[in-house]
């Protein structure tokens, strides 16, 4: 008992020793280098996306340092892995802010992780510009320090698609639609909204299913969609199911006239690698595509390829979203002439910001608004290109889509 007591007390002592002092919140003096802390998912379910975020953030840091830094402060990025876990993301942001004393923080991947992280970040008065947390629950917690850096609030992601479908002449329009979505805070709101819009427009629902996010075997679900023989298939997916469904459809020789997935097809090589030629015709709502002409995008694409290799089609949208976060903070700090978090928060609620995803501004809860909305991207011949609206389309949409092998 004695021995264990000693060790136990020593254990407490160790934790004591590992701590630091109190947390200052004063902004750094001009010219000094600063650190920006981020929790990224480098392992676990979101690791593919996490890696893309890291690449985007790094590229931005490189660019901003090349022009002298953020308001003349050279930027160093500090990454920690949250293993796609909510417990770790809370610990990470706590440590980054209070122990590593980073000057600024950027957001992690997914609404799932952004929600718990946002309460922690807000508690310490830090601004939380984030690239990937856009589900409705992100914004209804009464925090004013979150800023979702994407062109539109998530539940509107499929609105462009519904507009396009309903704009087709009556003879060509799909008569029936099948909907299947994860009950994920990101995917489900979009699919539900699309369903109500399409039903109002006269397209019958032949199948609707919400399945748990933890599902790992999608064959049975895909079979049910196939059995519905719908003309249009609208899927609320993350990357794993975005890969599984088209695969199963091809095996069952099922070729819907049109198919759209909420995310997955915008992940570049992670999507085209496992599917090969069967990416043909699959659509995805996208605020960004490598060939878009938004602010600084061609520079971003060229630099990305120079730094990380691969082709333009391999770049994941996550990287562009991360890069946009940096751009927004860069412009906000220039306007506020400060990198103090409180000032940044007030600044970010006003004005319009230019990013590689286009222009955007943020309302009181941090939702993006006034952006040009989300476009439709489609895979044609191994490339993902904008096809709608015509103002940005590189080619017209392929409809009905070409058959898979």
């Amino acid at each position, binding site marked *: *008992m*004695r*021995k*264990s*007591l000693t*060790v*136990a*007390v020593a*254990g*407490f002592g*160790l*934790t*004591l020793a*590992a*701590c*630091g*002092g*109190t*947390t200052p919140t004063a902004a750094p003096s001009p010219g000094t280098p600063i650190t920006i802390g981020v929790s*990224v998912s*480098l*392992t676990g379910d979101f690791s593919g996306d996490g890696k893309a975020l890291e690449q985007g953030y790094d590229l931005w840091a490189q660019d901003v340092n090349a022009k002298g830094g953020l308001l003349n402060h050279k930027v160093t990025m500090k*990454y*920690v*892995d*949250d*293993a796609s*876990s*909510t*417990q*770790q993301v*809370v*610990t*990470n942001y*706590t*440590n980054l*802010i*209070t*122990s590593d004393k980073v000057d600024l923080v950027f957001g992690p991947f997914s609404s*799932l992780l952004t*929600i*718990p992280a946002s*309460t922690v970040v807000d*508690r*310490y*008065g830090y601004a939380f510009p984030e690239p990937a947390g856009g*589900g409705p*629950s992100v914004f209804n*917690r009464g925090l004013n320090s979150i800023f979702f850096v994407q062109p539109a609030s998530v539940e509107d992601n499929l609105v462009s698609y519904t507009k396009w479908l309903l704009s087709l002449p009556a003879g060509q329009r799909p008569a029936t639609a099948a909907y299947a979505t*994860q*009950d*994920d*805070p990101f995917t*489900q709101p979009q699919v539900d909204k699309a369903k109500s819009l399409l039903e109002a427009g006269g397209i019958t629902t032949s199948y609707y299913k*919400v399945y*748990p*996010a*933890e599902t790992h075997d999608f064959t049975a679900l895909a079979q049910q969609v196939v059995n519905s023989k719908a003309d249009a298939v609208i899927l609320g997916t993350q990357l794993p199911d975005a890969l599984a469904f088209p695969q199963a459809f091809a095996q069952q020789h099922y070729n819907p006239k049109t198919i759209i997935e909420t995310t997955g097809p915008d992940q570049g090589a992670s999507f085209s690698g496992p599917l090969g030629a069967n990416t043909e015709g699959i659509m995805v709502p996208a605020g960004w595509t490598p060939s878009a002409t938004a602010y600084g995008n061609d520079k971003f694409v060229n630099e990305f390829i120079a730094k990380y290799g691969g082709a333009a089609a391999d770049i994941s949208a996550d990287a562009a979203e991360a890069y946009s976060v940096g751009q927004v903070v860069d412009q906000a700090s220039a306007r506020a002439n400060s990198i103090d978090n409180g000032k940044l928060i007030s600044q970010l609620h006003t004005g319009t910001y230019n990013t590689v995803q286009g222009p955007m501004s943020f309302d009181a809860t941090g939702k993006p608004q006034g952006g040009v909305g989300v476009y439709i991207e489609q895979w044609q011949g191994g490339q993902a290109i904008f096809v709608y609206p015509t103002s940005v389309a590189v080619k017209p949409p392929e409809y009905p889509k070409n058959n898979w092998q």
Partner: protein
Amino acid sequence: MTALKAAGLVVMFAVALALPALAPDPATTNIAVFTMMYVGLATAWNIMGGYTGYISLGHAGFFGFGSYALGLLLAHFAIAGGYSAFLFVPLAGLLTAVLAAGIGWFALRTRAATFVIVTIAFMFMVQLLAENLVGITGGGRGLSFPVPPWSGGDFNIPYYYAMLALATLGLAISWRIRFSKFGLGLLAIRDDEDKALAVGVPTRAFKLTAFIVSATLVGMIGAVYGYYVTYIYPQFVVDPLIGISMVLMVFLGGLGTLSGPILGAVILEPAQLWLAYHFGASRLYLVLYASVFLLVILLLPRGIIPSVSELITRWRAGAGDSKGAAGGAADPLPKAISP
């Protein structure tokens, strides 16, 4: 209990109580909350696994259930964030007890390896229910807890004390059981269940009681956890990793001992958080963690406390007895000795 042991206990408890004053830095109190959480979890698990020998790998199911129970209670009664929310934790524990009674009745019909796997199966059933009963639990969209208005630096402190209270409760119960007839019955079940039954120990009732007590504590700790992270999802709160961690901590410290679980938790949890924070980015953190794991198990299969006690006993016997090592060869009772 000797005066020395009592003094030691008081000192340890005083340090634990004073920790937030000694180290108010939120990064440290955050680690302290999670560490104290695992102290409680390990102690609670030990009541079942250590005393009866029935290894449950499904305790994470109770952890998650407690979390959801509290979240739903707080939502149902429209409790705002603050101190009053903690009053509902025992209620969440009560609900967990009911679940444990049901699961225990099924699971305890099996033994040894089958029991282990059945507990795993029940854990996944709880997770599946949390995911699929979307109307109640919110499914994959998660469940929100009310957020207390406490400010940044002090936010963690009430949670730390809540965890400390639960850990102390668990330890007190474990101690009470250990030195009672009930505890003796449990140890008899561990050593040879059929003989215990033959001698008249009501094995089924005892096993079920230990299971329920263990699960209730775990459920309450889970409830406080959910409140601390303010937002829970099925796959993160019914998490096999939590279940395995508490088992590993007990094994590290010493299965069936009183201070073993505490020691295991105090060593492993800060180490895990530290490793994850500093090495997670290089992806080799898992390999490092696994290596530590393996080293512990292969070198100290009986855990630190029993191994160290044995060493001390042998050393004492060797030093005090002129005949040397022979005196120390009288092995202490397997595992069940020094708390």
